[in-house]
């Protein structure tokens, strides 16, 4: 009963969405990702996120891709629960000693053809964690990387652009020896 009372008495609080220039940009980028993925894989893009030792700053930005503002699902870009279902790995963080082997296994478990996008400064060159005792190295030291996205953390828009860049690179060179 208290639930109904609360539903009845709580007023609806929303703010009008201010139209941003950015949102048109995002839409264009995401559409191009989808088109490119359909050409490459014959279907929409499925992404598996791997946290290889990140501080979770990049994760917050990545999960923002699924919020109502960016709403990636409307373009057919899905985050999936298993690398078996994925076309693209989104790897964050400096690769820690404990995560090096799981990352390699995840890479192996992803069906070919696949893309690997390293997200954030740490994934690129270990960032501020470089040289720490628990850190194994950047993502490229463990698995072949297609595109690296700089930023600490990169914005969702930058992440989208990075994925698009990876797709376009693969479209230009379909038989990339990197993943063989």
């Amino acid at each position: 009963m208290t639930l109904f009372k609360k539903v009845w008495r709580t007023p609806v609080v929303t703010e009008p969405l201010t139209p941003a220039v950015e949102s048109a940009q995002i839409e264009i980028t995401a559409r191009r990702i989808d088109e490119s993925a359909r050409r490459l894989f014959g279907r929409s893009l499925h992404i598996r996120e791997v946290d290889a030792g990140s501080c979770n700053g990049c994760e917050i930005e990545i999960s923002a891709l699924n919020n109502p503002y960016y709403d990636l699902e409307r373009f057919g870009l899905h985050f999936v629960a298993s690398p078996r279902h994925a076309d693209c790995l989104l790897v964050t963080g400096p690769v820690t000693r404990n995560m090096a082997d799981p990352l390699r296994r995840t890479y192996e478990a992803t069906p070919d053809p696949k893309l690997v996008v390293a997200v954030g400064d740490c994934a690129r060159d270990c960032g501020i964690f470089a040289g720490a005792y628990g850190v194994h190295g950047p993502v490229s030291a463990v698995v072949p990387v297609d595109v690296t996205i700089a930023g600490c953390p990169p914005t969702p828009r930058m992440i989208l652009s990075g994925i698009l860049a990876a797709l376009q690179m693969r479209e230009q060179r379909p038989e990339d020896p990197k993943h063989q």
Partner: protein
Amino acid sequence: MTVNQSLMLNLFTGMLASFAVGAAGALLSGRWPRASRWIGHSFALIGGLFALSLGLGGLLGGVLSLSITQLLPVGGMGLGVDRLSAFFILVVGVAAVPSALYAIGYTREYERRHSIAGMGVSLNLFLASMALVVMARNALTFLALWETMSLASYFLVMTENDRETERAGWLYFVMTHAGFACLLGGFLLLSAATGSMDFAGWQAGAAAVAGPTRAVVFVLLAAGFGSKAGLIPLHIWLPRAHPAAPSHVSALMSGAMIKLGVYGLVRVGFDWLGAGPSWWGGALMVVGAVSAVLGVLYAMVDSDLKRLLAYSSVENVGIILLGLGAAMLFQTYHLPALAALALLASLYHTLNHAVFKSLLFMVAGAVLYSAHTRNMEEMGGLIKRMPQTAVFFLVGSVAIAALPPFNGFISEWITFQSLLLSFQIPDKAVNLTLALSVAALALTSGLAAACFIKAFGISFLALPRSEPVRHAREVGLAMRSAMALLTLACLVLGVAPFVVLRFLSKTTAELLGATPDMQFSWSQLVAGGSFATVSPLWIALALVALLASIPLALRIFRANTARRYYETWGCGRAVQTARFEYTAASFANPFKRVFSILYKPVKELAIEFHPESRFFVRTISYRNDARSIFDESIYGPLNRALRSFAQRVRLLQSGNVNIYLLYILIALVALLIIAR
């Protein structure tokens, strides 16, 4: 084709002679276990073949009538074969032939440990009494053979004489005799009311019997036959006796013996008592629906493979009863064609269940034979070690889950149609009952599919969960060929049901005086005029074509079919062992939660910490058992009441001779007063 009586008599004599030679041979060669094993089971096999032919002969129209007056008091031994008896002889034969063949290989393990001679004698006696009891034509013959069958099966259950079988055997003994007492009471009442001990006399005189007497007779006989058939709440012996018995005996008990309870119910409802009030059929339907749903729910949560199959037998008898109850209701409302259809469905399911449940029990036995476990939590990966057995189990599972192209689908389809056609009954309450029973049957089918996904998936797929299972090997030729026979039967009965349905419709015609409301040809079955149609053959062909089209489609669309072999994805874990696998208990857990009102699960979580710190755990043990509500709410109080009553009675039994003399005096005086 006509079958004359002398051929039937020859088949009958051949059957009895084989079983007799089998029993005698097994006993005489008892000192040489191997010889005894071969003789006992080979002659049982031959006898089974004779029974099969006798059943077929009877279905083709052969009749047999025998009377040996010297053998038994009160009317002598009366035997006869009509189409219904013939059908059940056929069911016994269908279960007996592969079981005997299987037993030749399976009982090798029993040599030197248990009495092979005893098994041979009991098995032959068991088979003979099962084939004969459906031929009985008077009350005493029936009861004598019924009791022989119960005792023979009791000795078979008790083969592995350990603690588990002792308890199971005792429970079976008590339940079967409680059922026997009910039958005896019913038979005597009916005999007194009709003035005849012959079944023919009952059939003629039953209509004149007063209503209440008929009702009491019906309830007594239904309880007696129901306890043999394993209907809830009289089922409690079944999940204990089946796992305890040797596997070929479980196959026979589940495939054939519990069907004789169904035989009895058919006789009661359509032959001995004739059409009754609507609550007879209604009661059978309610009991059937409860048995079906609860049976499969209990099967779902059990991790003992043979007990799972035993509970599934409860479920299937429930499905058979749904058809049977519907047939009785249709008969009450004078819809003979529909009654025949429902009876046809229930008889066909009886045959089908005999085929696939025998098969499944044999597979469970094969696993037990080569991996020495019945516990599904210890199995896994058997498809790699026993590939043929795995195929047999898969076919049996698909058949029992009522999926095409196998036989379970056909009989459940006909059952569904006969229940759906119940709108022709002009009574709202009955319509509602039948509509609910359709829902119950649908729920049962779905749960049965889930249950056998668990049974197959946990036992045969993934990695072995224990050391003996890792070393399991494929079983011998005798066992495999027995299972292959039944697998083939599942397919044939599912693709070409018209072969059997033609004979069955004559059986129902003989009982009810009407042919079922169904047309069938080699390619399709049409129920209720043009109410529903199914084409088993086309479905089978379509399924094959669909499977074949997958590689073709991949080729046409030029899909990437490159292969790369790598380990199973285990969330990136460094170590993967069988302990990470999905277990039977975890598969069943969602069902346990949803239906917790029925299971009353007991949860126990015990964590032992390190004495120095609570952050270090030494052991964790978790239990989540389902309890049987029947054991607790019906049989527990019953047992306690019986015990306290026995305690009171013991007061009379003081051991003092003087008191006993006093009793005698009191009895004498009382008798003198009463009998003046």
